[in-house]
């Protein structure tokens, strides 16, 4: 609040003089400065590049303030698709990544773009569609078979089309069917985040692949039902990755490391476990810091 207040005053003086408007808008805001009982790190700014699902589901609204209070860092959360988040890591534009596309994450470790990668949590992807279910996939737990049925019935399928983790998962599922959806009239790309894509899917009464968390968080506005779930292929695994501070001088190595440690801390994991239970009756994410990917039975 304080920072903005100063910026506001600075700029307003500027604008006020120029526009010769007397009596600038009153600004009696007295900021409630949270007393700094927390440590102040040398470089307090941490850029977190993450996926839209962690933001749209509201998880980060809970975790980021916790981290800031515990460590004194200030997190700048940039919510983009996983593809863009990984690219930001590669370029050294972010300090830490929270992403969900394991096969695309590994090359960054191999190339030395990231120096640590820790399993944080998982949930699962589900295939949702209109209550009328024109493709008749209700009760099909086999994700590949469900997609094939959607293709065969030429029901509209909305793809994210934005190189996000969800989009990567969807494309890997299509590659397991004998269908090449690109260019088909029933296959449409929204190019937007998960929340917006679900809205479009609902309006068009189409099918889409979504992570469960975003679906549960936005369900109230949607006319969509979950049809396919529980396939081991649909596992959605989130990792936190620290960008290699040696890449350039501006990367906040200590801050990135602190965020990684925070995400796998038992107290944080407990918060993740309970997140959303009160609101949706079920957890949105399952904490996994004490497990390995093999334990989850994926790949």
């Amino acid at each position, binding site marked *: 609040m304080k920072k903005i207040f100063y*910026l*506001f005053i600075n*700029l*307003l003086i500027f*604008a006020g003089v*120029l526009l010769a408007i007397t009596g600038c808008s009153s600004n009696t805001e007295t900021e409630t400065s949270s007393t700094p009982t927390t440590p102040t790190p040398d470089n307090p700014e941490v850029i977190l590049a993450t996926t839209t699902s962690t933001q749209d589901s509201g998880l980060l609204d809970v975790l980021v303030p916790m981290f800031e209070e515990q460590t004194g860092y200030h997190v700048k959360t940039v919510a983009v698709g996983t593809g863009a988040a990984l690219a930001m890591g590669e370029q050294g*534009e972010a300090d830490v990544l929270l992403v969900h596309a394991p096969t695309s994450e590994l090359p960054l470790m191999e190339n030395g773009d990231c120096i640590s990668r820790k399993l944080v949590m998982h949930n699962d992807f589900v295939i949702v569609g209109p209550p009328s279910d024109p493709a008749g996939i209700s009760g099909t737990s086999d994700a590949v078979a469900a997609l094939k049925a959607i293709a065969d019935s030429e029901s509209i399928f909305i793809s994210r089309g934005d190189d996000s983790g969800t989009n990567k998962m969807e494309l890997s599922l299509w590659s397991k069917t004998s269908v090449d959806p690109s260019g088909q009239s029933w296959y449409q790309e929204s190019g937007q985040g998960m929340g*917006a894509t679900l*809205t479009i899917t609902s309006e068009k009464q189409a099918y889409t692949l979504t992570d469960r968390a975003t679906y549960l968080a936005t369900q109230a*506005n949607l006319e969509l039902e979950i049809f396919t779930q529980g396939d081991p292929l649909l596992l959605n695994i989130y990792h936190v990755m620290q960008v290699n501070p040696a890449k350039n001088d501006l990367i906040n190595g200590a801050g990135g490391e602190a965020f990684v440690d925070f995400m796998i801390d038992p107290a944080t994991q407990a918060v993740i476990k309970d997140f959303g239970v009160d609101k949706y009756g079920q957890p949105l994410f399952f904490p996994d810091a004490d497990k390995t990917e093999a334990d989850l039975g994926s790949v």
Partner: protein
Amino acid sequence: MDLIVQGIVNAFQLLIHGDPEVIQITLLSLAVSLGATAISLILGITFGTVIGLTRFPGRRFLASLINTGMGAPPVVVGLIVSVFLWRNGPFGILHLMYTPYAIVIAQCIISLPIITGFTMASIQQIDPKLRLQILSLGASRFQYLWLLVRDTRLPLLAAVMAGFGSIISEVGAAMMVGGNIAGDTRVLTTATVLAVSKGEFPLAIALGIILMALVYLVNMVLTTVQQRSKPR
């Protein structure tokens, strides 16, 4: 229909209860866009007057560039500013990316051609005889310029309104260079986009109403100033 009513109700609730987050977002939007307008006003009036009054080689080309810039897409401006402000970019060392200052820079670039263009056109439409008359009455160079700028204050205020209106309502550049970071660079437009993608439509509508009310308020003040002068 319910949604619209709920949105309006929500907007008033947020305003009356003084929701701290919404107030902060609103003040930031106002600060950033007024600041950007002010900076481009200084630069724009200067450039516009110079280009309007002088003749030099390449002047027509420059004028056509400025007129094109009046329609510059905010996302493209955002992208160009990002490339310069990224850590790997030439100004990365300044740590401006994902700060309100980055948004101010991008919005300046968007509104500068608008204000320059308006100034240039309105200076040029002044009767050349008047200019001669001012000079022949023995005005100093400064007095001469001041009189010209004063004489164009009506179109200049229109320029301010057009410039301010175009940047407070733009979302592409603010999203790209600001990053829509809560409490930091979240302005009314990017907050609206986020509310929509979260499916929180009443909040989105409420933010939209606040944005439009704000634009109206600023324009009302400017219009009052503009129309105060007696018709000639």
